[in-house]
């Protein structure tokens, strides 16, 4: 049985019939970390809200743990853990009271499932009498994860858990997810950060409600069809303009301090360098690189 199964799931909003989720089909295996990667407005949150029974789909089917999200919503509510993108615990209750409340609501106690949250909870335990609203962003995140875990869910849905969290906390957070995976919990996580994609077992690239690709991160980068080069010059703007005018290049775009340029076939690097110098660019550097998830995403979008 698949942990999560979506079968042409569709969600349409409002009078303008904006299609937020467009016939999305995918499966998540038990015990894997599945990433939903896409920009803001891609439909990630809508998918999460449908899977956690907060939103009714307008088409298609989906099941979590074999329970239908429409018919068997009551079962899903007692088995899954959900951490919304926005902090939604009681800010006027203390850390301990929040955790205790969500434990009792699911008919369990903190002690019963303490082993699940121990690693995370010890980090916030010294603030257990502080009100949740007075915690820092990273602490809130940890508390929210504890509350989503306290009833030992079979599937954990994390909607953009690392948005707005500093890089160190983000790294810690992903390590926690790996430990949870080791305990046999299926995790479905969404993120707009492409660099986090490689930390998932499998990812789905999603844009404008449509799935672009579902693969392991390795396979996605391996299947990048073109040759990719990172180019640098003193005048970045002129470089980008020159590259986009270069008709032998398949695609070019800014990527951090470099410009990435792709070619259908391998090229003579010196020829490209000469061409750029001819156009008056100085300090040209060029190297062949492996595609990242972000390159693959851009490539898929341009198609």
């Amino acid at each position, binding site marked *: 049985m698949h942990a999560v199964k979506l079968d042409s799931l569709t969600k349409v909003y409002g009078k303008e019939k904006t299609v937020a989720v467009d016939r999305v089909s995918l499966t998540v295996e038990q015990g894997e970390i599945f990433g939903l990667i896409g920009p803001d407005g891609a439909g990630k949150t809508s998918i999460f809200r449908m899977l*956690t*029974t*907060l*939103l*009714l789909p307008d088409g298609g089917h989906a099941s979590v743990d074999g329970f239908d999200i429409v018919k068997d*919503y*009551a079962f899903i*509510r*007692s088995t*899954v853990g*959900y951490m*919304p993108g*926005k*902090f*939604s*615990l*009681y*800010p*006027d*209750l203390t850390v301990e*009271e929040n955790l205790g*409340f*969500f434990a*009792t*609501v*699911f*008919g369990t106690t903190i002690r019963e499932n303490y082993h699940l949250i121990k690693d995370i909870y010890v980090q916030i335990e010294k603030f257990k009498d502080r009100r949740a609203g007075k915690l820092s962003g990273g602490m809130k995140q940890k508390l929210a994860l504890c*509350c989503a875990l306290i009833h030992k869910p079979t599937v954990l849905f994390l909607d953009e858990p690392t948005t707005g969290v500093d890089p160190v906390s983000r790294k810690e957070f992903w390590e926690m997810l790996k430990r949870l995976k080791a305990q046999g919990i299926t995790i479905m996580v969404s993120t707009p950060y492409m660099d986090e994609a490689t930390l998932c077992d499998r990812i789905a690239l999603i844009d404008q409600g449509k799935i672009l690709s579902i693969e392991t991160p390795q396979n996605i980068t391996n299947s990048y069809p073109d040759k990719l080069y990172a180019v640098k010059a003193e005048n970045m703007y002129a470089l980008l303009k020159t590259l986009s005018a270069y008709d032998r290049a398949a695609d070019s775009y800014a990527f951090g301090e470099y410009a990435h340029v792709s070619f259908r076939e391998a090229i003579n690097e010196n020829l490209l360098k000469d061409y750029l110098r001819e156009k008056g660019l100085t300090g040209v550097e060029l190297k062949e690189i492996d595609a990242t998830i972000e390159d693959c995403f851009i490539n898929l979008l341009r198609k």
Partner: protein
Amino acid sequence: MRTVRFLLQKEFRQIFRNRAILAMICVMPVVQLAVLPWAADYEVKNVNLAVADHDHSTFSQQLVNSITASGYFRLTGYNGSYQEAMHLVESDQADLILEIPAGFERNLVRENQQKLFVAVNAINGTKANLGGAYLAEIIKNYNQRIRTELISEAGEPIHVIEITSSNWFNPLMNYKVYMVPGILAILITMIGGFLSALNIVKEKEVGTIEQINVTPIRKHHFILGKLIPFWVLGNVVFTLGLIVSWVIYGIIPAGNLAVLYAFISVYLVSVLGFGLLVSTFCDTQQQAMFIMFFFMMLFVLLGGLFTSIDSMPEWAKTVTRFNPVRYLIEVMRMVILKGSGMKNILYHLGIVTLFAIGLNSLAVLNYKKTS
């Protein structure tokens, strides 16, 4: 039931942590009940009277004396001409002008008849109305007295119908006795309605309802968990209000307290249901606040607190039938002033029960865990 218990524990924790709400619950009934009844007084006193006396006789003196002795009027001008008195009205120093014609005494004795002229400044409707009525009453009594004197001098028998009245249930016609139960009724309604409406919308606004909705908490558990705390608070406020009206105004309910509490219990359920219903339509506390204010204004003005429902036009009377506050104000006055028993308020209790069932059912139907 276990779930409800945990929800209640959480709810009470949050309430006791919210100082603003606690202060509102304690201070609002005390302050409002201590201040408002003194100001919301229908009795018109200190009506400013200007007299234009053209007669300057013993009779005109007696008449003016009996007017000022009544305590309702303050003589602000004793003029020789109507024009002078009119100036006082124009400069807002007089509300009424009494013009006593020349030859007042002489004509009264000789011809058994005389006319007085009263001019009323009608800018303040209530004051003008009541001031005019008081003045007419005093003049009538004065007239009676003169007739009695004159006729008895002539040695003829007197036939006078004397009217004496007694005010039941409020012998001294003390307006505070009448206003305090009404104000308390409004207080209960405001606190119950606003607290429940704002609380649930706050959960929506903060986003906590999202987290609650993915738990196995049942809809009716959640709603019970919200209604019970505010029901308890409503009763606390009511008790506080009764104590305040006893301490400050010496009002002790003439009827049975149990009858009063029985009615309040049901009434609170209906008001909380109304707040709940409003909250299901709103996404922000601001929206909820405005909607509640709109209805509160209607409830208060069409509740019979300030203006008698009997004197409203027919359509307004029909509207008041759908106003729960109207029934509470009536029952409060019936039980506290008149000492009515359960039997007398059964009709009101029945209607409020219908409100409670209807409003809460609508609210529960409209509250969705899934959008």
